[in-house]
């Protein structure tokens, strides 16, 4: 397969361009999309290509998301830009009570094929209201699919799948990854929702992660290798549907696991994975499943505190070593 190195931003634009050319019912709606191609330049060039299908709105998130729902119900495939994932809070009814429930509640009469695209995550000194990782709220809401990609190739393939999906998809795009480059295939491809990827092979310990923490875990994997620990890093890519078979296959081999996410620890998705592993794979486990997440506080502004709150490579390494020490032979 021929590839080239492109950024996540470029991957987003490619995915959207290809899909919008393929399907005229797709449109993008949100704030500040047209003049600069989105506040993160994530839609650069698209306004010129798809004039009436990139729509700037007033600052009215409740109605922006609701507009997506209504349009999806009536034959369109909206992509709703949330500006910052933190602002989902201003449209929670539309997301949780409407978008997620309409199909089921009305006995399957309708479908809601929309993507809610939300840049999330910390690490840019944007403080408490612009830095959150809120994916577990939506995993906890039946009716939503949740995508959390980590590199350009996955972003492109998963965004295309999310757009083609007939159900509502929350697409969390980490803000620190826009500039991240990686190999992306030349030819067209789609990555199905619900398929994890092994991003590093190893026999000693399984590290389950997603989004920006994938690169943190891969770096930890390299450092652990230096001290003789071969970590297998699984990038979940989508939390719902969850690829539990991929987790099981790895844990059956390594007999121990840890979960790493940027969202704060308590109530985070790591707890769900740990519970599933405990229920399904208890007999294979040679050590307790451990979790790493951000500390349970709103994101502080000052970088010294923010770095302390966010999981770092050192934290991942220390946790892996601890598990390896405890691992029954």
């Amino acid at each position, binding site marked *: 397969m021929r590839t080239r190195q492109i950024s996540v931003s470029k991957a987003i634009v490619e995915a959207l361009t290809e899909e919008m050319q393929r399907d005229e019912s797709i449109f993008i709606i949100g704030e500040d999309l047209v*003049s*600069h191609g989105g506040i993160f330049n994530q839609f650069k060039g698209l306004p010129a290509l798809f004039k009436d299908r990139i729509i700037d709105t007033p*600052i009215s998130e*409740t109605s922006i998301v609701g507009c997506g729902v209504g349009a999806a119900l009536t034959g369109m495939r909206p992509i709703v830009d949330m500006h910052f994932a933190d602002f989902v809070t201003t449209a929670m009814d539309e997301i949780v009570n409407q978008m997620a429930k309409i199909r089921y509640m009305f006995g399957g009469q309708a479908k809601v094929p929309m993507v809610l695209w939300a840049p999330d995550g910390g690490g840019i000194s944007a*403080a408490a209201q612009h830095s959150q990782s809120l994916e577990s709220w939506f995993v906890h809401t039946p009716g939503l699919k949740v995508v959390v990609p980590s590199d350009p190739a996955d972003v492109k393939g998963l965004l295309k799948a999310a757009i083609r999906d007939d159900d509502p998809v929350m697409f969390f795009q980490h803000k620190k990854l826009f500039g991240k480059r990686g190999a992306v295939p030349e030819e067209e491809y789609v990555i199905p929702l619900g398929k994890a990827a092994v991003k590093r092979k190893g026999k000693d310990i399984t590290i389950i992660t997603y989004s920006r923490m994938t690169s943190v875990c891969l770096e930890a994997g390299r450092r652990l290798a230096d001290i003789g620990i071969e970590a297998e890093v699984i990038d979940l890519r989508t939390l719902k549907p969850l690829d539990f078979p991929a987790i099981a296959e790895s844990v059956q081999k390594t007999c121990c696991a840890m979960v790493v996410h940027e969202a704060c620890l308590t109530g985070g998705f790591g707890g769900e994975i740990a519970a599933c592993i405990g229920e399904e794979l208890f007999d294979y486990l040679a050590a307790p499943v451990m979790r790493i997440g951000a500390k349970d*506080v709103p994101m502080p*502004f000052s970088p010294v505190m923010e770095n302390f709150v966010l999981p770092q490579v050192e934290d991942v390494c220390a946790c892996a070593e601890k598990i390896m020490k405890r691992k029954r032979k």
Partner: protein
Amino acid sequence: MHSSADSNAPIISISASRKKAILKKMIQIRQFEERAGELFHQKLIPGFIHLSIGQEASTVGSCASLRPDDYIISTHRGHAHILAKGADPKYMFAELLGKKTGYCKGKGGSMHIADFSLGILGANGVVGGGFPIMVGAGMSIKLRKTDQVGMVFFGDGASNRGTFHEAANMAAVFKLPIIFVCENNNYASTSHAKVMVAGGSIAARAKAYDMPGYTVDGSNVLDVLEVVQRAVDLARSGGGPSIVETATYRYRGHFEGDRQEYRTIQEINAHRMHRDPIARFEKLLVAYNTINLDYIVKIWHETAEDIEKAIHFGMESPLPAPEDALKGLFVNS
């Protein structure tokens, strides 16, 4: 809707010392913002900052009608509001620089400065986040039977949040002592208010909520003061809320580093040259012999010195300890 103060009307009757204080505050804000921009571009201020250079008359004129025990709620573009309500620039710079001595101990940054002891109930990173909170402060004033008032600042963009409409209605229903001050600087990030605000006037929306609505030239500080004072007097005397819309303009980008492809340099320069609120006020005060040019030079100089001292305080202050991040989540932590 009431129209703005007649611009040919004689200069409103406030004392010379109050006029001087107003001028001084506008200059302080201008210098604070310019230096904050420089520190940001020198990479000393992390994150992102939104400056309000050009909007000083709107903010200072509004706050000049308030008492120290009145409340304000600010926005993402909040430095000016906070200074105008009396905050100390040194704790503000310390906060912008992420220092332990900052107003919020380095936890808030530019978008989240507050000094509750001065009635500043916080800047807000969520556009339109302040309206409902001000309804609560207004309800509290009413229940506590004081004669305080609350002023919530917002932009043209924020007027399109549902929270604005809910809060305006609730404030009117309960006759709460609230002044909704919309600083209409024409833009919400990249979007022009002409395109995004149906009907074109935010003050006109007051009619729907059965409260007074005023539009005022936001580059004329005395006009702003006169109109806002009317709204404040009404609120203080139990007459309920008002909306004041100030026509203003920001010279800098939406945030520092904004490419500003949505407007021209000529447009910005036209405002700077012909409608600068500080230059206009200085000219007026000189024309009325309230002050002379030497006095103006002196204030700019003194204020600049104070700002440098405040920056020095911020720069010399210690960083928080990493573990400080875990403190202060609850009352007993």
